[in-house]
């Protein structure tokens, strides 16, 4: 998969992946008022990354999406969600909806739900980065038998 696919596929992928990514973010951010949510949005966003890896090949794709970047965002998203829980101590305890203490807004409006938007956002980042990183790592194992003398793992 060094060269990727044909130019037609590449151009289409370049065009479509942007739309897919925006749709994923939209699904995540409106999770509290319509079907969807951070997890579905994150998987959609990851699907955009998967499309790029498939169309352009791993080498090219790694210039846009690096594995260590995925690790970092993955950890940051998870930690962010945990922080939402810990910030609940400000309002009384673990996982208390600390933004909702001064009113939760009207159900059905975008600015409602307190921490739910925040949680959805963090889950979006976490799931998207995690799945994209995992796909990159899996894509590295395309050939069953690696040639000898491949670089060893760094510790």
């Amino acid at each position, binding site marked *: 998969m060094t060269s990727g696919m044909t130019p037609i596929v590449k151009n289409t992928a370049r065009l479509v992946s942007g739309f897919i990514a925006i749709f994923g973010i939209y*699904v995540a951010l409106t*999770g*509290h*008022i*319509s*079907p*969807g*949510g951070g*997890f*579905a949005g994150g*998987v*959609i966003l*990851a*699907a955009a990354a*998967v499309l790029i890896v498939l169309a352009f090949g791993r080498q090219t794709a790694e210039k846009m999406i690096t594995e260590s970047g995925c690790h970092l965002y*993955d*950890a940051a*998203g*998870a930690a962010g*969600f*945990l922080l*939402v*829980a810990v910030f609940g101590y400000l309002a009384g305890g*673990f*996982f208390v*909806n600390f933004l*909702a203490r001064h009113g*939760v*807004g009207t*159900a*059905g409006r975008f600015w*409602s*739900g*307190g*921490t*739910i938007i925040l*949680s*959805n956002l963090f*889950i979006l980042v*976490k*799931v998207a980065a*995690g*799945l994209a*990183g*995992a*796909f990159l*790592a*899996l*894509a*590295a*194992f*395309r*050939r*069953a*038998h*690696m040639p000898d003398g*491949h670089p*060893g*793992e760094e*510790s």
Partner: protein
Amino acid sequence: MGIEYLILLLLVFMLFALLIAVEARDLLSSVISVGAGGFALSVIFLLLGAPDLALTQVVVEVVALVLLIRLVVTRHDTTAETPRDALRTGVVLLAGGVLLVGVFVAVGGTGAAGTVPRLGEPVMATADLAAGQTTPGQPVAARYLARAGEETGAANAVMAVLLDYRAYDTLGEATVIFVSILGAYAVLRRIGRRGRKEATI
């Protein structure tokens, strides 16, 4: 009633697709059939009033299918040679018979006490929302539906449950995906122990 027949039809389709997936000799057709079953499942979710699940099931199915198809098409060993293990098949059939009888008794379809309620009449429907301090053990779900809008501000009751009432579960959910991706990385290290050559047969 119409919807239930549709669900039944889709379920039959799904069962056939999954049977093909299990029995097909060719691994690629097996993987694609399981995808067909998964998409049928997402339509069933939609019919059962669960659009969140339908959306999630579709996108998860796509990603899982990409992973599986890639796994199969880039390898040379593409057919399942040995069909099945007779002893284990027998055990499964026996266990399956017992399970189905158990389900038949437990569901019953009569709605009697101590059995699973009839389809379409969830236990939530028996809730008495006005019940105060005196009648304990009211199903929680009706209360979620009735008050989620004002208490959490989320119009989508599923998200209200997932990210507010039961957000601790969702922390677990986020952690599951984190763990399994870390696990995949751990398994994919080419060399596990230092000073040992990669051994392939």
